[in-house]
């Protein structure tokens, strides 16, 4: 089947429609930025955007994917043209081990598209990912910063923006 991912149309062989999107992304398309954390949509490490909304790809069967556009961390931005979320993450020096951070960044990208200037309560409600290094303090600062960068930038960098 064909997947519209990160601005490209990619062909993948799907033998089992129940295969989680996560494994297609990681093992078929070799995009390793999207992480396996729990396999039950409980931690958010595998968060990607589908048509701009956050989805936990470990629990999204590939068979459910039709014409939608998928964006992973690799499609969010580049070092040359970072997405506002990535720019904010760099400025706040957020990651420690870094494993959960792509999931947090994807969830944040969706959040600030939906709510231009999220309050702390908006963050508490919408960002429910797990981080064991416990970088939550800097994540919160980075989310606010990302929202500020995005609202100041007329055209958002990165090819993953819907």
């Amino acid at each position, binding site marked *: 089947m064909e997947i519209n991912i990160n601005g490209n149309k990619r062909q993948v062989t799907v*033998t*089992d429609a129940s*295969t*989680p999107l996560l*494994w297609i992304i990681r*093992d078929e398309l*070799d*995009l*390793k*930025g*999207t*992480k*396996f*954390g*729990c*396999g*039950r949509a*409980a*931690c958010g*490490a595998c968060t990607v955007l589908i048509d701009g909304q956050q989805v936990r790809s470990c629990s999204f069967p590939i068979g459910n994917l039709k014409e939608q556009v998928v964006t*992973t*961390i*690799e499609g969010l*931005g*580049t*070092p040359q043209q*970072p997405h506002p979320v*990535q720019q904010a*993450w*760099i400025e706040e*020096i*957020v*990651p*420690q*081990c*870094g*494993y*959960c*951070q*792509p999931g947090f*960044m994807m969830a944040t990208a969706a959040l600030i598209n939906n709510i231009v200037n999220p309050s*702390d309560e908006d*963050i*508490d*409600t919408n*960002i*429910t*990912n*797990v*981080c*064991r*290094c*416990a*970088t*939550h*303090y*800097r*994540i*919160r600062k980075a989310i606010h910063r990302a929202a500020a960068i995005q609202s100041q930038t007329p055209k958002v960098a990165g090819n993953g923006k819907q």
Partner: protein
Amino acid sequence: MENNKPARKVSRRKFIIKATLGTLGGLVLGTYLFRKPIQRSIAGYINTLAGPYEGSHDNPVIWFEITPDNRVILQSPKVEMGQGTFTGLAQITADELGVGIDQVSVVHAPSASGNLDGTATGGSTSVSSLWQPLRELAATMREMLKTEAASKLGVAVTALNVSNGIISGGGKSITYAETIKGVKKWKIPATPKLKEIKDYQYIGKPIARVDLKAKVFGEPIFGIDSVMPEMLYGSVVRPTKVGAQYLDADTSEAEKMPGVVKVVKEKDFVGVVAKSQMEAENAKNAIKANWKVDKIWQTRDIENLIQVGKGDAIEIQKTGDAADMLEDPTGLITMEFTSPIGAHAQMEPNGALAFVEADKATIRMSTQVVKITRSEVADRLGLKEEQVNIIPTFLGGGFGRRLHTPHAIQAAVMSKAVGKPVKYFFNRQEEFQHDTFRPPTHHVLKAKLNANGLITAIEHNVSSGDVMYGSALVPTMVQHVIGADLGAWRGGMIIYGAIPNFRAVSWRVKLPFATSWWRSLGLLANTFAIESFMDELAIKANKDPVQFRLAQIQDTTIGKRLKEVIKVAAEKSNYNNQPVNGRATGFACCIDVGTPCAQVAEVSIEAGKITIHKVTCVIDPGLAVNPDQIKAQCEGAIIMGMSAAMFERMYIEDGQLKPIIYGDYKMASMKDAPKEIEVIILQNDDKPGAVGEPPLGPIGAAIANAVRRLTGKRLTAMPLSLG
């Protein structure tokens, strides 16, 4: 005082050991070592010191690689698990080697490089233990380059200067990359004089993490991201019951499953190799394994085992005669505390990508013990250690979970069976049920106060499952010499040296499931118990808790540093002995691996829910190589510690360790984490000390002490519950 009433009945029998010594002597004492001051002094020594670095000290060539584009690659024998070590090591390298920080890349040294750490990455020692060796190695390398440059340029070494990887003098210059051209063998000179600390350009500055870009743009840097050509996927059947021993398995159904390449049956495990991750997982689930289970454990069985007074005891600290003084019940204050089984819950599951060929094995994985992993894999495969190359990757969290790596053996055995690379990692249920847990603890504290409201005698008894025992990290011989579990009693000693009589006793209990190193080891639970008790004693003595502590700390070097962090924490926070506008502040402190740390938690309770608004943390790790990353470690340790203190708990139900998934294993999330954390770094030592673990100590007690101010209720069990 009603709150001092023990929650459980303490067996008094074991507390009269000292009194009965005259008649029963050593017979009753068993491994009781309070007559052995040598062990005690070793114990005290180890409790305060960071472990030394046990790897290559003298060959810069295996540490630094100069690239053709004049960059430096540092081959790090320490792994990066989020603690920021790579950044600190890059700063040290840049300053002594004479290159810009942007010219330095840090990579994990494969074991085949020969740059191997003799111990592990852990114990908050990476930067502190490499501080001297790495500066010396880099400075030596710089001199080697200068000597070579002198001969190439025809200029005296003494006339040469180094900056940004360019050596210049006598009107000429040459890059490091050009300097190394044609050099076949390096002559290693004596270690040159190191730079003055004030002359360092990068050390001491809040340099951005060197791995920031890789981690923000999703580069494939973790063990689980590893790939090799023709790679297959493995899965291993694991029991769900505590203590289950593998007998055999019916694999007939699994062998017919789609994608299955081979079912691998070994004496100690059964696994399956398949063409995809999902096929391996599905086929594993179709294997019917038989297990021998002697006992169906329940949580209450474990609680019955973890009791001060049961198991073997060892006196780890003794000054004066606390045991005798606390024997007489007059004026005796006693409290008990407990902590539960804790899971590491690191985000990247354990696993390995292994490729075993005829005479060699290559393994890419997240490990904190490169050398031990190598030796265990070599042993199982019948290879020499040199034939096994462990290539460490970035760790998706460590926290001590990757100090134990039998999964590397299983990946290697499965690869050998199919002759292809095999990637194998745990699913989340397996992670939660086969963790090497933070052991549960039980603490009994006793003290007496004099008329001036000062402590005359204090004693801490801690019962814990093993941390150090059974770990490949600590040789059996050392375990016997020390005679006690240095992991279990981390933070279990009394740090108030001005008290005339104090004593600490560690009770060892063997549990039916694996317990081991968990970030800060016993520190979190021990500090929770001791610092909660100190708070209660201050209330009893009608004293301000901060002043009460300050009055009982000795004026030693470390005592003065402890007093300083306490004073600054009280000054810089909203610290108040009484609640203000519905918010109370709780205070606690600790010394861990020689680093004093004090914290103030600002807490309110609404509708029965504890909210932590702000935490102020004052830490004195000595010289701060990277102040920003020290702050990051403190922020993370505070939230991880409050998560463990307030929410986390594994339990055993009908033989199964539970929960088996995030969420059910409740951890702090965005809504729970304090919205304000202030970290203040003091530097009352001229060399770097421990950072990664000390700030995990005080937070549990700081929260409980604030709750005591708000409610009058003393919470004595982690996870904290208002009931």
